[in-house]
């Protein structure tokens, strides 16, 4: 497999962590109480830690003196390969936790498969990530239950988020061309095979949370091809601000 393919494959995984980590970092200092503020920041920190491992590896593969920061900050919007789910804004705590939960369940399944990769670096990153993401999934599942089976208001709010964000879940299982090449060469994960386990796990938690599983069959997609929502440009404007304003400097 060519290095360029591996790099593209890494974007497909790491960009999700990058954009979700960035969204979570917006909340630091504004949580509903100190304990959840600290916990959400922890998740963001874990994700940025993973991103650095992925991008340091990708930068090395690219071989042209690129750094992790070039990859994280200096691509155009079209070149970010994250799914639409993770770029959705922090409308309220119910959205934040639902987005997190929907991603965590996928993320854990993905890493459990990725640890079997024939690429040793990816295997190592996955193994380390599994520990962190297991905790993330526990945290977000617990909150879905609390909000779903808490008060009438919280039930209503989290159901609203579940209904709204559901349409972004299907994209997680779309195979891109880069995915196919990576699977064929043994380094990548066939995400289409994770779908059944994903919806089973998600369904169990929603049920325990007394929430209704949406019946919609209409799903949104595009992020994996670099076609994002209107929210993405603003997120990138923040993320890239310093690197764009002060190019070629060290910080």
């Amino acid at each position: 497999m060519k290095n360029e393919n591996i790099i593209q494959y890494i974007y497909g995984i790491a960009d999700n962590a990058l954009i979700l980590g960035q969204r979570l970092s917006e909340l630091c200092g504004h949580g509903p109480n100190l304990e959840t503020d600290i916990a959400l920041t922890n998740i963001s920190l874990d994700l940025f830690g993973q991103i650095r491992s992925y991008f340091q590896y990708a930068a090395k593969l690219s071989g042209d003196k690129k750094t992790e920061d070039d990859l994280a900050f200096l691509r155009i919007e079209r070149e970010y390969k994250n799914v639409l789910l993770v770029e959705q804004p922090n409308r309220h705590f119910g959205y934040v936790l639902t987005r997190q939960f929907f991603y965590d369940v996928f993320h854990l399944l993905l890493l459990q498969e990725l640890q079997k990769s024939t690429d040793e670096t990816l295997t190592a990153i996955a193994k380390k990530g599994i520990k962190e993401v297991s905790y993330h999934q526990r945290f977000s599942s617990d909150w879905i239950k609390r909000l779903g089976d808490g008060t009438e208001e919280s039930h209503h709010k989290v159901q609203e988020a579940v209904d709204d964000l559901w349409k972004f879940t299907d994209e997680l299982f779309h195979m891109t061309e880069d995915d196919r090449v990576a699977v064929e060469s043994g380094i990548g994960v066939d995400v289409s095979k994770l779908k059944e386990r994903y919806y089973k796990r998600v369904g169990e938690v929603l049920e325990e949370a007394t929430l209704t599983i949406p019946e919609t069959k209409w799903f949104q997609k595009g992020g994996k091809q670099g076609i994002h929502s209107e929210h993405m440009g603003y997120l990138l404007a923040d993320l890239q601000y310093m690197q764009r304003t002060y190019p070629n400097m060290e910080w």
Partner: protein
Amino acid sequence: MSKKEIKNTGTEATRSDRAEATRSLEEIFEQRIARDEKIEPKNWMPEKYRKTHIRQISQHAHSEIVGMLPEGNWITRAPSLRRKVALLAKVQDEAGHGLYLYSACETLGITREELYEQLHTGKAKYSSIFNYPTTTWADMGAIGWLVDGAAIINQVPLCSTSYGPYARAMIRVCKEESFHQRQGFEIMTKLAQGTPEQKAMAQDALNRWWWPSLMMLGPTDAESVHTEQSMKWKLKRKTNDELRQQFIDQTVPQADLIGLTIPDPDLKWNDERGHYDFGAINWDEFWQVVKGHGPCNKERLSARVNAWEEGEWVRDAAMAYAEKQEDKKLKKAI
């Protein structure tokens, strides 16, 4: 005095007994402090001691969490992944400090809700330094270096203060604050050694944060009301002016080292005193900001109030859920 006589003057005797008892409690309390022993939540303490500690510890806790906001302002725009992670972790540490300090304060018989209420209504104060805006990335360096630096000077003596829970919280806090200070200085160093734009950014940040940092060490001794009592209770070991001098003496050589200029034309080494002399502090500005008229007082407070109000349904949900789980457990047990 015969039994009969005591009976006749019963109320008076009880009152003086009580006064006697309080006096001896107070003596025990004061001896304990004199022996450098800690006062613990279960120990008797004078009401004034309790109130003063609630005021100071909560003010400190509020400063930690309001202090998350100016730096939180740059998390999404941090210039590199390494810096983003470090800044996130730093701001998270401040949340942790808030948590230890609120917990220490709660041991004095006040709830966190009450403490927040005092902050949100403006009854309780927080450090005025956080009412200044963070306008560039270099402010992350300046805050770590100067603000955390001044905080350490204020706080190291508190590690041996008389109230046990406060002293123990401060030991943990101070360790992390000195890490923050080194990190801030490292940001400044990198900028000062960088391109002309970066160096200008660093100098501009130093210019804006220098004087507010000096004010952070508190009003001059002549105007400081609490000092004497605070010294006795070991809430203070040195006066504000002594601490300020210590901060200046420590910081000026650091600025020299990285080639930045302290924005004070009157600053010069005084061989006789063995200290730096420095220019007059604009105390009008200080009191202005304390009274709520700083550049960001409104924004900081409303950010805290918003987070609290918008979080209410979340906290209610967690509580309701916990109660339901408790009920389920009980039913199972029956």
